[in-house]
């Protein structure tokens, strides 16, 4: 009974925490430009994420080590610096795009266009991290995050043609605008696979003192949670396809996405969208700032936990503070939020091998995972999807930069 509750809670947490500005913006853009055709990118990304999240939970449960610490131990400090630097910088960039999403949400609700929404949002997130505890943050963010289920409601109200949608789950060549097609595909995969989630998840597992008996529970929660989370991204894509395609609207700017629910729910739809966007982005900001802090603190062997007062984990607190400041600074400069979102998601895809290949080696090392090592299925699937995302990213990012 207790196990069942634990599993349910884990799944709810994953669903509520899944959607963030990256998957929202990329899915909406894909739906508006290519109908259901890019659903396969979400499917592949989600499958890969399920395996990776399960692996990071398993690593934490068996080795009692969070991912970042294990990486430094296994590969040594000089190599560890590569993922450390790459993932920290990427974290700041993704944080900036989440702030862009939060600013848009605040702007939609208040009607005030205000360049200081980003630093205000960053400050609010910082305050919560400074004063809150891990369970409050994790459970609070994901409970509020359940508002993103509004997209699932919208899908059922629109009565999509499911057989045609299912056809989109198989990869196909673009019928028009090939460059845009592949770039969005790469961004979607980057948004789904989000490596910061792995550091967050494994740190959480260590803080909750998981052990080997938690391995089966972890398998169920990771699979179902990420599966339902991926369904949310799919819902966004389907709604965007059915709302924007018949109206001939392509998404060039962020605020064009805002009325995607109004044809279905009228004024409620507008504010529900704003609330879903704002909460999803805010939750993701907390997770990203913490993930960067986990990565740095665990890598250098400092004390880390979200459950102590900041003065007792001084350097850890300093890192998440600096990360939030970095994200806010990019926000103030005022780069186009949709452009920065798509680019940071595509960059995530390009940098995936740096984060994932060492992780896979770790998951096959009996010294760390004992008899709970990876099977050939998870190794093959993760390798194949990461390789695909990487190749597509390396080809399509320069083309996109040249095109714009």
């Amino acid at each position: 009974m207790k196990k069942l509750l634990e599993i349910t809670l884990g799944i709810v947490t994953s669903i509520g925490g899944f959607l963030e500005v990256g998957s929202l913006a990329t899915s909406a853009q894909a739906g508006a430009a290519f109908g259901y055709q890019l659903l396969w990118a979400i499917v592949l990304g989600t499958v890969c994420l399920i395996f990776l999240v399960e692996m990071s939970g398993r690593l934490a449960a068996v080795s009692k080590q969070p991912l970042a610490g294990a990486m430094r131990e296994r590969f040594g400090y000089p190599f560890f610096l590569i993922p450390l630097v790459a993932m920290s910088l990427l974290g700041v960039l993704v944080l900036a795009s989440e702030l862009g999403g939060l600013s848009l949400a605040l702007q939609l609700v208040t009607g005030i266009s205000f360049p200081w929404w980003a630093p205000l949002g960053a400050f609010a997130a910082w305050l919560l991290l400074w004063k809150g505890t891990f369970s409050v943050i994790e459970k609070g963010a994901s409970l509020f995050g359940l508002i993103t289920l509004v997209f699932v409601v919208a899908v059922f109200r629109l009565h999509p043609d499911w057989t045609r949608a299912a056809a989109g789950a198989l990869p196909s060549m673009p019928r028009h605008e090939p460059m845009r097609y592949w770039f969005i595909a790469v961004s979607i995969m980057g948004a789904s696979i989000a490596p910061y989630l792995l550091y967050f998840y494994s740190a959480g597992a260590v803080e909750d003192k998981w052990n080997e008996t938690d391995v089966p529970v972890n398998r169920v929660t990771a699979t179902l949670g990420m599966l339902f989370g991926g369904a949310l991204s799919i819902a966004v894509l389907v709604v965007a396809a059915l709302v924007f395609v018949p109206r001939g609207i392509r998404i060039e700017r962020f605020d064009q996405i805002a009325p995607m629910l109004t044809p279905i729910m009228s004024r409620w739809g507008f504010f529900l969208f704003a609330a879903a966007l704002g909460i999803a982005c805010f939750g993701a900001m907390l997770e990203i700032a913490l993930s960067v802090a986990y990565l740095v603190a665990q890598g250098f062997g400092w004390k880390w936990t979200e459950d102590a007062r900041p003065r007792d984990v001084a350097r850890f607190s300093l890192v998440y503070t600096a990360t939030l400041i970095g994200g806010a600074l990019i926000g103030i400069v005022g780069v186009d939020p949709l452009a920065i979102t798509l680019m940071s998601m595509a960059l995530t895809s390009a940098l995936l091998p740096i984060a994932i290949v060492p992780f896979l080696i770790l998951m096959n090392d009996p010294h760390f995972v004992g008899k709970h090592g990876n099977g050939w299925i998870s190794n093959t699937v993760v390798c194949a999807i990461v390789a695909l995302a990487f190749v597509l990213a390396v080809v399509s990012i320069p083309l996109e930069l040249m095109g714009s």
Partner: protein
Amino acid sequence: MLTRWRMSCAALILSLLACGGKSVADQIAEHDRVRVSWEQTSRFAGAEWLDLAVPDAYAARTLQRASEELRSDSEALTREQLPSRELARLHAALSIVRARADALARAVRARDRDAVIRMVNESPRANADSLLRQAALR
């Protein structure tokens, strides 16, 4: 061995660059897509405003945004090498759509519902059926 590897790398990059360069037809199609998209965005914003589904501020800002995007697209047009007939057609079409977005923005700001109704009805509607078929949604 190494030079051969380098050669094939260079060939790959060159072929990618060749794909990246857009043909004239692609350029024209892109401008048409941008224009139609913002035209329909304006129409959508106006229609949703009439249904009271979006706040005044959002509708006004989106229409202003449409106007700005259309202007920057016509600026981009002047920098491109296109046949003069196409250039004239694109410029004319862009300025019509932009004028419509501006008028709609003024009407929304003045809360002139009658004018907005008229303008939304006048602005061309996207052919939903053909678009849905094109995207294989129906």
